[in-house]
């Protein structure tokens, strides 16, 4: 049994090796056009207000572009490999050999995926670590820290009335209080608090407030009117930060969306590994689509169908808009419509998730698209790719019978 398995692996490896050596045979022009378009787009300067914003936009654009080009190339290579086998009868002639249909497809898939991944992985690493505006200059995203958002924020007005704060910056008038509650932490953290003071009539004003956490109290330095405090705190039970404006005329603006507890930075390399693994998974997914479709239809149709699926999957914004509309309690929807909207969301969110693999954990609230990924997504992508190849296997195993 072990010998048979070893033989099977050897056959898969032989097909994968041949596929890798023969990637894009006869389709080099299509690949060259794809790369030229990507290169032109990657070189164009992004429109941004600041150098930092430009760097982030450039990074995001390059990452997305590389992922799109890699997916398209994998789709093209996969469809070409399987389409050529179908056209010249390789699949049929292999049927008489010891090579099984599943081994042939697995070999083709491994060959396309590994061949492209070997070329794309260094590019991913270069963009992430070395290119201008790379993640190395945005340490927090390269080595994401654990983040603990406030559980509850409550504002107490000068007349004693209280209101729960939902989102956005808080403008504290003289005498007002702000209470921010956090859950217990298991490691030392730092609290990040961006604030600024201003006069109602405009212009800077001297800051006059206190921030109390437990027994400790902080005050702004004399003349300080704009700062982001980062205060180190030990691990411990649930924590409360209490803000009290003691000013007589100035208002204090607290950027509550950015108030957060941050843990110590993690190592950067798991992020890089996940990033590359995500890219490879995406290549594998597109390759499986190309191979699977090309066993059923011609190469051109397979490319068009696969590209359409990937494009649909990338229209995440559309799916998100529909889902958020359905989730809005004020939306004029009855229960039935809401149920269907929920099913729609479940169904269509699976697809966008499949192509949003190339990334690290979501580290900020408004994370760019290359920052979303989780185990479920990987598992889902693997399941879909396996299902596509399984259907292709069924097609290859089919033998037509003559008419009676």
């Amino acid at each position, binding site marked *: 049994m072990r010998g048979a398995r070893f*033989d099977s692996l*050897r*056959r898969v490896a*032989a*097909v994968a*090796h*041949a596929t890798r*050596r*023969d990637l894009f*045979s*006869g389709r080099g022009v299509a690949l060259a056009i794809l790369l030229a378009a990507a290169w032109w787009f990657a070189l164009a300067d992004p429109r941004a207000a600041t150098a930092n914003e430009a760097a982030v936009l450039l990074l995001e654009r390059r990452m997305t572009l590389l992922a799109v080009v890699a997916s398209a190339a994998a789709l093209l290579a996969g469809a070409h490999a399987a389409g*050529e086998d179908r*056209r*010249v*009868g*390789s699949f*049929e*002639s*292999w*049927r*008489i*050999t*010891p*090579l099984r249909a599943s081994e042939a497809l697995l070999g083709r898939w491994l060959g396309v995926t590994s061949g492209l991944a070997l070329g794309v992985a260094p590019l991913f690493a270069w963009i992430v670590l070395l290119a201008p505006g790379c993640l190395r200059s945005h340490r927090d995203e390269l080595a994401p820290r654990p983040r603990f958002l406030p559980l509850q924020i409550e504002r107490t007005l000068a007349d004693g009335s209280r209101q729960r704060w939902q989102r956005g910056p808080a403008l504290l008038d003289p005498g007002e209080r702000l209470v921010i509650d956090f859950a217990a932490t298991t490691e030392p953290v730092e609290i990040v608090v961006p604030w600024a003071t201003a006069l109602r009539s405009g212009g800077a004003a001297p800051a006059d407030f206190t921030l109390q956490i437990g027994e400790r109290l902080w005050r702004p330095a004399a003349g300080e009117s704009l700062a982001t405090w980062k205060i180190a705190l030990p691990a411990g039970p649930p924590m409360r930060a209490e803000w009290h404006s003691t000013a007589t005329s100035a208002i204090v603006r607290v950027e509550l969306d950015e108030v957060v507890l941050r843990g110590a930075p993690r190592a950067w390399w798991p992020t890089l590994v996940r990033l590359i693994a995500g890219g490879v998974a995406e290549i594998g997914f597109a390759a499986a689509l190309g191979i699977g479709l090309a066993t059923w239809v011609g190469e051109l149709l397979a490319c068009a169908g696969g590209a359409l699926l990937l494009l649909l999957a990338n229209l995440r914004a559309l799916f998100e808009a529909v889902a958020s509309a359905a989730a809005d309690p004020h939306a004029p929807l009855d229960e039935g419509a809401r149920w269907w909207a929920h099913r729609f969301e479940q169904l269509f969110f699976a697809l966008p998730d499949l192509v949003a693999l190339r990334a690290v954990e979501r580290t900020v609230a408004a994370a760019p698209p290359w920052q979303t990924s989780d185990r479920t997504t990987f598992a889902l992508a693997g399941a879909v790719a396996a299902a596509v190849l399984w259907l292709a296997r069924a097609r290859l195993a089919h*033998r*037509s*019978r*003559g*008419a*009676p």
Partner: protein
Amino acid sequence: MSAICAQHLAYRYRPWPWSAPRVALRDVSFTMERGTLQLLAGANGAGKSTLLRLLAGVTLPSAGEVTLLDHAPGAKELRGRVAWMPEASDATWRLQVRELLELAAALYGFAGAARRARVEEALTAALLDPLAKRSYATLSKGERRRVGIAQALATGAELLLLDEPLDGVDPESAELLLAALAARARAGASILLSSHVLLDGQAGGDQLCILDGGILVASGPPAELMRGPTGERLGFAQLLRRARGNG
């Protein structure tokens, strides 16, 4: 012991689901002994490729029975014992000739030194030594057919089914290839080779079957079949006409 035994084999197909069935093969029966080289001749559309596809187990017959090495086509027991070279040769592979042969040998379980030896032997037999490092995509039609033959030889299979292996091959190379295949047959392999153009006066092989319009119209030793009424050697066209009964 027969390598192939076909009994009343028939194959009909519908070009479109709504059209009437067309007959590709009608009541074909023949036997091929092990360790022989058998030629299958016929004009375009005679049913040679269809017959080879049925033997390879790629398609199932409408009627009749066939066994290869005492097993039904497509049986698990035949995997690794039969090699089939299909008709198409217009692939755009950039793989080198040697790499294609290595792939064929690897699929049949050869590894390491044994695989290299198989590949070298097949390269020499198919006159491909000078082309070993050439990309398949750059080869001419005849050279590609020779690569197909070499791939079949590299597998070391007991039974080779070769569909039009000499199509586009120059006469001198075709003669040498036939000799190499005959030598392989003498060494124990069974080879069924189809062709729509056989070399005048040089049709080697132990048996010759002639298909016409899906019917087996003649079979026997090539020397006998190709001898005219006055003892002269017939050309392929003359042979076909005589087999049809109007020559």
